[in-house]
């Protein structure tokens, strides 16, 4: 028999999940959940998609999915971890559909995304930030997301493992590879 994984879920979170699963309190609990999580989820998606409009579309879809499938949430992880996972999957699917729609190869698509960043009124980084984004964009998807979750969100490998469904060992390897590639690109680049 499959054993239920033990995770520490706070009493507040348990209460919120309970309300979300109850049809009478679902809408008000959902409002609370959106208010609590919108900024974190937004920036998590934005770091993968870079563009605000794309992020906005995906964020709406993520919340629609959360609202629709909250009953299926088994509470084997934190609610935030489960939401992160949905956001990650939606973002990756969005990028894949964009590739297919515009018949881009991954390289062309990421170059376009980086070039658009220079014109983006909602991007406040300098040339150094653009270069770091360009290096991160070139990483394979798993290395990219592990690096971002660790570097920007300070998530633990255990949490990332639950989000991505990959073993902690494999994640550590991915992170190590990503970090080394970034370090190498930085030291190769004269302007840094």
């Amino acid at each position, binding site marked *: 028999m499959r054993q239920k994984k033990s995770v520490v879920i706070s009493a507040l979170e348990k209460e919120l999940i309970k309300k979300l699963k109850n049809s009478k309190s679902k*809408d008000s609990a*959902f*409002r609370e959940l*959106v208010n609590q999580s*919108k*900024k974190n989820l*937004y*920036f998590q998606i*934005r*770091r993968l998609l*870079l563009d*605000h409009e794309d992020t*906005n579309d995906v*964020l*709406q879809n993520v*919340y*629609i999915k959360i*609202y*629709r499938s909250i009953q299926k949430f088994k509470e084997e992880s934190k609610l935030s971890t489960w939401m992160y996972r949905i956001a990650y999957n939606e973002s990756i699917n969005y990028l894949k559909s964009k590739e297919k729609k515009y018949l881009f190869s991954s390289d062309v698509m990421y170059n376009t995304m980086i070039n658009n960043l220079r014109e983006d*009124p*909602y*991007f*406040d*980084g300098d040339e*150094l*930030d653009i270069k*770091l984004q360009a290096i991160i964009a070139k990483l394979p998807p798993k290395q990219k997301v592990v690096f971002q979750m660790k*570097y*920007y969100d300070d998530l633990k490998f255990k949490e990332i493992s639950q989000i991505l469904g990959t073993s902690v060992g494999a994640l550590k390897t991915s992170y190590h590879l990503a970090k080394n590639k*970034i*370090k190498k690109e*930085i*030291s190769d680049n004269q302007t*840094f």
Partner: protein
Amino acid sequence: MRSSSSFKVPNKYFKNFDVEILEKIKLNKNIFNVPENYFESISTERIIEKEKTKTFYRNLFITSSITLVLIILLVFNNFGEKEFVDETFLVNDILEENYDYIGENLYINQYSKNYTYQNFDNQIIMSNLDNDFDYIIVE
């Protein structure tokens, strides 16, 4: 041989150089901005409404698809063009003991349909499925 530079750097300076740059960039986390009042404008009501509309259209699509398939099956079964079997051909088939149509529903013409024939001890019994008393015996 003289060293390439007479300037000295702190211990492990170059080793930590790239790491320090990464840390420095990390401090500048808010490189992504959002339009003014963007987060305030995220409306849960609109998301819920959108989800309900999506669910409605998904259910409508599933129901319509199932109905359409059922209609097609019904039309195919009831109104499909029936293939009539020529009477002479049928009689010859029985006489020559080919029995090509044994056990099948036969549509001889538009007035005599739903016939089937079976072979009982070299007696061919043709019977009408719609009428228990309507049968022909060919010996």
